[in-house]
């Protein structure tokens, strides 16, 4: 189990983050101020820290300077979207930076990225009888290679990484085809159909009315 520390003074936001982390099977601890965070870090081992900048008692940047030597990956969460803050954060050696309001999916994707950097995530994702090799871009079902196009593979990875979460069509377009993609959502539906066929996931990839698709375990 990967353990994540959430340092966030707003109860609603902290709770929301916790919910999202739980869906992705991360274990999470929530603290509400910088002092408490320091205490918890001394007692316990964490794989990643989500850190709010505006904190009571000890602010995020100060706290970061203190925990830097530990080498724990840190993602800043903040409402401060000013450029200077971002530059400061990234210069100080923060792994990533997210501004509020953020979406659960984006948060999980960034956590995933940072963890992979630190080799805390394996490059193979298992789903039922299927193995997805992220580095080699290969997919095996029951040990047999499945041939996929690049876009199909990317879509598969996106689904597997966010299993049990609905992926809306907008999010899929944004992630796989990029912001400026002007196409019909039919393209997405076609790709989903192909994946269902090639992997035999007729029931696993559920269509959610009006929203998009969900990969169910």
């Amino acid at each position, binding site marked *: 189990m990967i353990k994540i520390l959430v340092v966030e*003074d*707003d*109860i*609603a*936001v902290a*709770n*929301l983050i916790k*919910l*999202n982390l739980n*869906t992705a099977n991360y274990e999470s601890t929530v603290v*509400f*101020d910088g002092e408490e965070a320091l205490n918890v870090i001394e007692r316990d081992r964490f794989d990643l820290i989500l850190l709010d900048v*505006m904190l*009571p008692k000890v602010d995020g940047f100060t706290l970061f300077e203190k925990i830097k030597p530990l080498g724990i990956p840190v993602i800043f969460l903040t*409402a*401060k*979207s*000013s450029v200077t803050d971002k530059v400061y954060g990234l210069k100080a050696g923060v792994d990533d930076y997210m*501004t*509020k*309001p*953020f*979406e*659960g*999916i984006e948060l999980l994707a960034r956590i995933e990225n940072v963890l992979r950097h630190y080799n805390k995530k394996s490059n193979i994702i298992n789903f039922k009888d299927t193995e997805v090799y992220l580095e080699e871009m290969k997919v095996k079902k029951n040990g047999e290679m499945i041939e996929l196009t690049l876009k199909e593979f990317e879509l598969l990875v996106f689904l597997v990484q966010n299993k*049990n*979460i*609905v*992926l*809306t069509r907008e999010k899929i377009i944004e992630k796989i085809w990029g912001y400026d993609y002007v196409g019909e959502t039919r393209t997405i539906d076609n790709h989903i159909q192909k994946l269902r066929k090639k992997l035999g996931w007729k029931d696993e990839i559920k269509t959610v009315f009006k*929203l998009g698709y*969900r990969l169910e375990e």
Partner: protein
Amino acid sequence: MKFWQRIFLCTLIIFEIFFVPASIYLINSSFELNLNMEIRSGISEQDRFANSLESNLYLLKVQKSSTPDAEGVGKPNIDSMIRTYLDNLGEQDVYLDVIDEKNEVIFSHFKNNKITLTNREELNIPSDKVNYIIRDLGEKTYLFIAKNIYLENNHYKLSYVKDISSVYENREDLLSLLIKLNALVSAILVIVTIIMSMFIVKPINKLIQSTRIIAGGNFSERVMVKSKDEIGLLAENFNLMAVDVEDKVNQLKRSSEDKQRFIDNLVHELRTPLTSIIGYADYLRTNKYDEETYINSLSFIYEEGKRLEKLTFKLMELIVLRKEDFELKTGKLDELFVEIKHSFIPKLNIKNIDLEISTEHLSVFMDKDLMKILLANLIDNAIKASKNNDKILLRSYKDTESKIILEVKDTGIGIPDDDINKVFEPFFMSDKSRSRANGGGLGLGLSLCKEIANIHDAEIRIESKLGEGTIIQLVFRC
């Protein structure tokens, strides 16, 4: 044109106007004088020669009469007498020349001295007059004086010629000396004015440097000129101006920093509830959830929405306070206190807090609605800070300077010293997590109070001890 150049030009022009013409006039008059002297001495010299010739003639006549064969003195005798006599004379620069009535040259120094003449109008001499003329011959200038002499009824013309070049040369020399002198004086004048103006301009240059620095945006620069003259005064005034500008600029900076902080905080205050609302809604629509998660998420969405609503209203109040002109009327504080206490009864009952009122029946200039908002905020804060069964004191009185004071006193948790100065800043919360838990403070209450105090031309004072309580006073300036 530079300052020293101007001074130099002025003095030079004055100098040239007065000194040069005066010098030229002097040189000319001394020249005239010399020339006249030469002419007069020439005429008297010539007289001397003429007289000597006459006395020689007399001697000749005596000589002739003593000889036995006296036959009188003839023209040839006289001619040779003139020749022999004049031959022995002849000074430096003086040439003589004698012709008879037939214009035959009897004697002349001219040939040897290369004086050649074609036209000699001075020889037309009226009987008892002397004629003179000044001629330039080649490089030199000569004075010609012609005179009639009669020797034994023989008519001769005696010319006395003198080289007077030196008189003219003298004048030329003086004039060229004047030009040199003029150049020298101008040079000295340049040096003197440069040095002089350096002394004058030095403080001005200092002033210029300082003004440049100030104009470049460094408003804390001051001019260091210590003198009692006009420049010192200018520097002093300039410094006063710089002080004024610096104050204004700092004021502007402060107010723009305040605004920036306000905006930063506002953005933060807006984003946090938005994050929750959007996040929970997104979570609910994309995940499978159980009943508890569902209710919790919806509660968060609802609460954060209410929070945004509250924030919007508070901001509206702040904006209105900054914009409107309020009409202040005399109002009784007693009434105000009673009304406020009444509206707080439910809140007071929750914590079983006693709100005690004491007044001295005072009246102040106020806008009653605004004062209610102010008091409500202060009492609200006091209730939040208090424990159950505490007491809050609301009173008005006149202090020793007979200023009217309105006071809210609690025995609650107090404010840390570090935070005391920040409590009036918009969005500042001394204990964020607690105030959030305590029914969602925004950190705008006291900044509202401050605005309202400003409208009433009153001052807010705050005194607090951690763990002992807080006293907030509104001091009316009347």
